[in-house]
């Protein structure tokens, strides 16, 4: 139920919750949303819901102690006290997250509570925004609790800021928002179920074959397939989350803005998982000094941000390497290659289209030895591969070309925008209806199937 692309969520939780939420009067909506979100989270992760509640209460209290009406003159003692509370709050949040990530890595992966990386980041931004006065009105408990736990965002983000949620106003639901929310939800569902989940099978095939035995063309195809899988999985999720939040009366939070149309890797990461990127920018990079304190410190700050980004995604070494490589590419783009990239924008696009899939391979293959093998197949200069079947590329292209083609088309901003712009057009409505039921068909007959091992 905790997965948006599941029959339980779409036909049980979502309609029942939405109808109750829409019916109750405006002032009561936030209570319903909080209760529904905790229920949703508890179904997905059991007792960890208590941890979420505990962290909520803790952060609410600390936030209130830190809070000060903006513009007021401040006594030095109070300033020190605020700083202390901020340190305690952020320190505790970071400690909790690092502890759970560590336990998950060393003891059991089940020890990382669902969505913790996301809600802890919300909590940290909440404290920082109160401290800096970005949150102007003192946040009440229910608003704070809804912000941390709201079910559209609690499992995988987007990492909305408190200020973006219009928490001080009474929620008003407009038909337009409900319709638009549904449009985004259906588009996201289709991306996840009809594209990402399908293409994901190709990546599994490569693992099955063993990287040492894939041909070089197939290794490249695999890199792109994984890139598409990740993109449509996460963009699809983000659209569904965004759509749901709209149906609840929140503004749309954009997490993806056509990253593959980016002119360079740093541009890519302004468009990819934007709420995470801007979080690191606002709460790590800029507090460290950003780019204002000379080249050396800028490089240091960039590397720090990207190593942290790597660590945030997972504790194993490949994620750290992934973050470090991205940091280095971004530094490369910012300094030595800057002039060149500005003059020839094609180079920036090539950067995106070629380098990004390669970095996703680092992201995907957690075992370093395997990673080395994969790269030796991508660039077969020093090794031969074992039992490579030269015809493999044709086999997999033959099977997956429709999904890959659809993916490429969706990477073009105009294609997606055409659908969104014309979302009231009967043809688009028909298309989305088809996508919705086709997705449900796939969900029912694949995931819902007791015999999951059919595809051998």
């Amino acid at each position, binding site marked *: 139920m905790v997965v948006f692309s599941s029959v339980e969520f779409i*036909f049980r939780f979502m309609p029942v919750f939405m109808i109750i939420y829409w019916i109750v009067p405006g002032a009561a909506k936030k209570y319903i949303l909080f209760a529904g979100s905790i229920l949703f989270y508890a179904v997905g992760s059991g007792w960890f819901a208590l941890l979420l509640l505990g962290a909520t209460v803790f952060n609410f209290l600390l936030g209130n102690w830190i809070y000060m009406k903006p513009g007021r003159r401040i006594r030095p003692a109070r300033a020190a006290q605020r700083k202390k509370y901020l340190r305690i709050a952020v320190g505790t949040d970071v400690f909790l997250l690092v502890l759970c990530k560590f336990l998950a890595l060393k003891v059991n992966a089940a020890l990382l509570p669902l969505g913790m990386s996301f809600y802890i980041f919300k909590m940290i931004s909440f404290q920082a925004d109160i401290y800096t006065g970005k949150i102007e009105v003192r946040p009440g408990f229910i608003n704070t609790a809804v912000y941390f736990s709201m079910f559209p965002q609690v499992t995988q983000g987007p990492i909305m800021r408190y200020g973006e949620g219009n928490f001080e106003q009474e929620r008003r639901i407009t038909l337009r928002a409900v319709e638009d929310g549904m*449009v985004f939800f259906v588009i996201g569902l289709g991306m996840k179920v009809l594209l990402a989940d399908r293409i994901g099978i190709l990546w599994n095939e490569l*693992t099955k074959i063993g990287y040492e035995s*894939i041909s070089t063309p197939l290794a490249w195809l695999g890199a792109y397939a994984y890139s598409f899988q990740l993109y449509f999985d996460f963009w699809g999720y983000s659209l569904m989350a965004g759509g749901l939040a709209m149906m609840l009366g929140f503004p749309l939070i954009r997490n993806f803005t056509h990253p593959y149309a980016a002119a360079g890797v740093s541009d890519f990461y302004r468009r990819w998982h934007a709420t995470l990127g801007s979080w690191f920018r606002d709460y790590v990079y800029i507090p460290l000094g950003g780019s204002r304190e000379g080249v050396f410190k800028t490089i240091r700050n960039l590397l720090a941000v990207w190593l942290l980004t790597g660590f945030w995604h997972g504790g194993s070494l490949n994620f750290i390497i992934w973050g470090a490589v991205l940091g280095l590419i971004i530094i490369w783009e910012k300094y030595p290659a800057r002039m060149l990239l500005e003059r020839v924008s094609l180079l920036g696009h090539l950067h995106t289209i070629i380098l990004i899939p390669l970095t996703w391979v680092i992201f995907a293959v957690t075992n370093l030895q395997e990673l080395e093998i994969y790269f030796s197949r991508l660039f077969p200069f020093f090794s031969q591969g074992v039992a490579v079947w030269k015809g493999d590329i044709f086999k997999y292209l033959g099977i997956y070309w429709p999904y890959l083609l659809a993916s490429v088309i969706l990477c073009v901003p105009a294609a997606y925008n055409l659908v969104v712009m014309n979302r009231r057009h009967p043809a688009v409505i028909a298309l989305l209806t088809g996508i919705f039921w086709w997705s449900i068909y796939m969900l029912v007959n694949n995931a819902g199937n007791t015999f999951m091992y*059919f595809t051998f």
Partner: protein
Amino acid sequence: MQKILDFIRQIPLVAVLTVTGLLLTGIALVCKDTAYADYETESFSRPFLTIVMEGIHDGVYPWSGGGNGDPAAEAGSTAEAVAAAEKAPESAEENGGQEAPEETEEKENAEETKSADEEKKDEEAVPEEKADEEDASEEKKEEEKTSEEEDGKEEAEEGKKDPETEEKGKREKTDAEKRIEEAARQAEAKDALIEEVEAQVTAVEDSETAPLDKPLDPLPENVCNKVVGAKDYGNADSYFMSPDDTLYNTDTEGMFARGEVTYTLGETDDSYFEDALFIGDSRTSGLAEYGNMMDHTSFMSRESASIYALFSSKMDFREPGSDVRETDLYDVLSARQYGKIYLSVGVNELGIGNTYGYYDLYRRALIKIRVMQPEAIIYIQGSMHVSEAVTKKDKVTNNTIIVQRNKAIATLANGYNIFYIDMNTAVCDKNGNLIADYSGDGVHLKASKYELWHESLLQNAVSR
């Protein structure tokens, strides 16, 4: 009224989805005791309307034989087999797969053929429609065995018919007519073939002797491979197994009976496989692609192939020197005589029926192969085990079940022209688990390890 319309106009997608959702729920409710009688009803994770989706997948529609608008109505043959097996796990027959989606196409084809050619109508469409109706009504009954002849026939026709024929039918009558005639001729020939094979299979079955009350003595050493055992972690789902004292070998006469002579397994070289055909699932596809055998051996395999749909579903046929093509086993086995037939299935059907049911279908498949390939040496290949991680975690894809099933099918070997070989010695550790390093997913060999299977085949061949 106007208000409602205005309201709907503001939320068109929400309205359409709500209406279609209610409509599907209505359909499911109305047909829950007829078309969907065999489906699990409402539960938290299974709203009524999902039944309609499952039905489309299995080829079960609320109305009989009509087409449906869902572009995704693709049916995997194994899934169909499961639909059948779920209904009749005990009495499931070979070819349990229900070819209903193809039936639908058939009917559409038949209907369009009607409009294309009035005169052909009676000869062509009516028998097909009749078959459709029969099948459709069959699906509604519980524990119904599917009619093999009909399945085979439809599938044959499906394979031969060119969809373009129907599209251009109205304009190019004569062309369409010719094609239809040709398709009909081919379908008739296929019908006749299947009928003949069936008759012979029945004759073989009729001639079988009564079941024994104790197991036969084992075959002499080296006549067949020993069934490789595996450590039992105690987590196998006994639903898919049979009692340990089940008797499998039932024949003292007929094709499975032992003769005076037995042959032993020994070493050979690659030329041995030149007149061999390997039939199997994705693992056999892997052997074809990575076993260094493609240039001298024929393969007939398909991902998700199982004993349930061995003859009813299409597979990829690879012959040395020609492209992969999709066809069925009737075509391949009737096209030429092979010296050796290697059969390797068993992992996709682990969650279907029990060991006895599997054995029974396996036996029938062997009879069918024998009828079409009277001279071939038949190799029953024991299913490859899975890795320790998989068998410990998965109570269905589990070595305990695999070993029991391998033991069951091994009894079908007669040491004369049917042999049991087991490649697990080449790829398993001392606990009988597939070595983790040899597999990316714990179930399939990595490409670089298929050579071990190839080697094992080279070491275990009969020369007569």
